[in-house]
C-alpha cells in the first residue's frame, strides 16, 4: 500500500494519476537536459504526477577506499591526497547503503508512489560513477556541480545539500550514508537536518516507512535499538543494513538514458563566502607505523603454522 498523502493538497483525486516509472522517465526526458532555467525544471517536476513519498538520498564521490595502501599517496605540500592514476573514484560505500535503504522502502510499497532522488554536491563529477545509484534503481539524480565546491568542509556540504533538497522538494525522507570514507566526519546529515528543521536518526540497519513515520533499527554495539520519527526526517544508514543491490543490465541502460539535473551555487542563492570553511586543514600526512614483521617460514606452510605457534609460546603470547 502506498502511504497516504499528508502535507500537500493534490490537485487530482487519489488514483486518477497513478504514479508509474514510465511517467518518471517521461518527465526526465522533458526536464533534464539543462536547456531551461532550473526553476522551470523544478516546477515541471512538481506536477500533479507527484509521487506520494519522496526520498532524497545524499551521495558523495570519493577516492576508492579499496585501493592498495601502496597506491595511497599524500602531497604534503598541497595538503591533499593524490588520486592514483587510472583508478576511478567511487560513490561513498555508505551512501550506496542509503540508496539501498531507499529502494527497499520503494520495494515495500510495490514500487508504487515512492520516488528516489539522489543528490550530490561537489565538482569534477565522473558521471558514470555518480549514475551508479540510478543503475541500482533510483529515479533521478541532482548534481550541485560548482568549482567553488572543490574543497569545502562538511558544514558547507550540508548547507548546499539542504538548499538543493529544499529547492527540489518538499521531501519526506532524506537518507545519507553514516559517514564518508575520506574525511570520516559523520557531520553533514546533522547540518541538513538542522537546516530543514527536522530530526536526525543515525546508524540505521533497517528503515521502514509507515503512516507518516519512519521506523529505524539502529546498529549500536552490544544493543538493539528501535526508534520512530515523524516525517520529514533525516536518517543515516550503516553497512549493517546489507549489501547494496547490483545494478541490473536494464538498470544500467535506464541510467544511461537519464541526464542529471545540474544546479550551480547561484541557483541556490549561495555565495562563495557562505561556504567558507570553519574547519581548515593545516597538515595532512601518512602516519608511519611500519614495524618490522618477523616472518615465520618452515619447509612448507603446515610447518610454518607449527613454528608460528611455538614462536608465540616462546614469547608467552599463547
Amino acid at each position, binding site marked *: 500500500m502506498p502511504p497516504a498523502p499528508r502535507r500537500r493538497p493534490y490537485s487530482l483525486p487519489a488514483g486518477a494519476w497513478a504514479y508509474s516509472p514510465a511517467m518518471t522517465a517521461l518527465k526526465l526526458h522533458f526536464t533534464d537536459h539543462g536547456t531551461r532555467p532550473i526553476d522551470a525544471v523544478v516546477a515541471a517536476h512538481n506536477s500533479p504526477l507527484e509521487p506520494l513519498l519522496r526520498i532524497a538520498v545524499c551521495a558523495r564521490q570519493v577516492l576508492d577506499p579499496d585501493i592498495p595502501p601502496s597506491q595511497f599517496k599524500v602531497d604534503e605540500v598541497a595538503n591533499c*591526497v593524490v588520486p592514483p592514476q587510472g583508478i576511478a573514484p567511487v560513490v561513498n560505500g555508505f551512501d550506496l547503503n542509503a540508496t539501498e535503504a531507499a529502494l527497499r522502502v520503494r520495494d515495500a510499497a510495490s514500487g508504487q508512489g515512492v520516488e528516489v532522488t539522489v543528490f550530490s554536491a561537489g565538482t569534477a563529477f565522473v558521471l558514470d560513477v555518480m549514475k551508479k545509484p540510478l543503475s541500482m534503481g533510483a529515479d533521478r539524480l541532482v548534481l550541485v556541480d560548482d568549482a567553488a565546491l572543490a574543497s569545502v568542509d562538511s*558544514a558547507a556540504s550540508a548547507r548546499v545539500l539542504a538548499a538543493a533538497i529544499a529547492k527540489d522538494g518538499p521531501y519526506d525522507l532524506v537518507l545519507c550514508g553514516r559517514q564518508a570514507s575520506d574525511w570520516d566526519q*559523520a557531520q553533514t546529515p*546533522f547540518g541538513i537536518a*538542522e537546516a530543514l528543521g527536522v530530526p536526525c536518526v543515525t546508524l540505521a540497519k533497517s528503515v521502514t516507512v509507515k503512516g507518516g513515520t519512519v521506523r529505524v533499527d539502529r546498529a549500536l554495539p552490544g544493543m538493539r535499538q*528501535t526508534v520512530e520519527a515523524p516525517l520529514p526526517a533525516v536518517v543515516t544508514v550503516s*553497512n549493517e543494513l546489507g549489501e547494496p543491490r547490483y545494478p541490473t543490465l536494464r538498470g544500467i541502460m535506464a541510467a544511461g538514458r537519464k541526464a542529471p539535473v545540474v544546479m550551480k551555487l547561484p541557483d541556490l542563492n549561495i555565495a562563495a563566502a557562505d561556504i567558507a570553511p570553519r574547519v581548515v586543514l*593545516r597538515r595532512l600526512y601518512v602516519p608511519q607505523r611500519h*614495524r618490522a614483521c618477523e616472518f615465520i617460514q618452515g619447509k612448507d606452510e603446515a610447518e610454518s603454522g607449527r613454528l608460528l605457534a611455538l614462536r608465540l609460546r616462546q614469547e608467552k603470547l599463547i
Partner: protein
Amino acid sequence: MTTALVAGEIAGGLPSPVTRQMLRAARQLTGNLPVAAFLGGNLAPLESSAGSLAASRVYLLEHGALAEIGGGYEAAVDALAALCRATSPDVVLLAKTDFGANTGPRLAFRLGSAFAQDCTAISIGANGAPTVTRPVYGGSATAEFELSGAMPAIITVRPGAYEAGPSGARPELVRFDVSAAIRTPKVQLIETVSEERAGVRLEEAAVVVSGGRGLGGPAPFKLLTELAGLLGGAVGASRAACDAGWIDHSHQVGLTGKTVSPRLYLAVGLSGASQHMAGCSGAGNIVGINRDPEANIFKEARFGVAGDWQKVLPSFISTVRDLGKL
C-alpha cells in the same frame, strides 16, 4: 584564558569513565580545571559522585525530556545549546560515543560553530584557535585541522585517546534550568535491548582471532571459533566478512565496528586495510596469516606467515592444542 566545557555522560548513575577522560583532555588543553555538564531526568544521585570530578564547576541540566535522550538526542542538543549560550565556553568536548557523535555535530550547527569528529589529540594553536589531530581516509592518513569562526569549537574525542584524569577537585554544583529551551522531542525511543552474548566479550578479550575476506565463506569461522576457544579469546572479523553475511556484524572490528585492544590479535586471511586496523591497532601484538607477503597486515604485525591459511591454520591449531596439554 581558554575555557572548556565537557558534556558528560552517566553510566550506572555515575560519571562515565569516558567523561573522566574528557576532563583530563580539557585540562591538558587549557591548563585549567574545566566545567562539566550532565543531562538527565533525575540527577539527584549524581550530586554525591560529582564531587570527585576534576572540574571547577558541574552544571546539572535536569528535565523530563532528558530522562531517555538516546535515539534522537534532540532535547540534549536543546539543553546544551542553552548552556553554551549562557556560559560562552571557548571549546566543548564530548567523547565520540553515540551521545557525542549525535549531539556534537548538531550542537555545532545550532550554534554556527566549527566541529571536529573523533579527534586523537587537541591543542591550542599559536593564534589561539583550537587545533585537532584526527585520522582520516579510514586511518590511511592523519590530518590536523584548525577550528575557526564562532565559538565554541565543538570537538568529539576518541575514547581511550586520553587517560582518565585524577579526581577530587570538589567542583561547585550548579543547577541550570533548561525548561524554556527544550522543545518536545519528535523522535520516540521504542525499545533498547541489550544484546550481550555468552562467552568472552570482544572488546575485553585478551586474545582476538579475526577473519577476513580471504576466508572465502562462513565455514572457516568455525575453525576460528575453535581456536579462540582454545586461547580463551573471542572471534573478530573484517567488515567485508560481515557484510558478506559470513558472520554476524557484532563481530566487526574496525573504524565503524568495534575497537579491540587484546594482547594478541591473530588476523587470518585479512588484508589489514586501514579501516580495519583502526579497530585493532591498540593490540599488543598483531600476528598475520595471509597469502600475500605484501599485504598491509604485515606492516603492523610483529609476527607473520605468508602462506595459505588453509594449510597454515590446521597445524597452528593442533600445535596450540598440543602446547595446552604440556
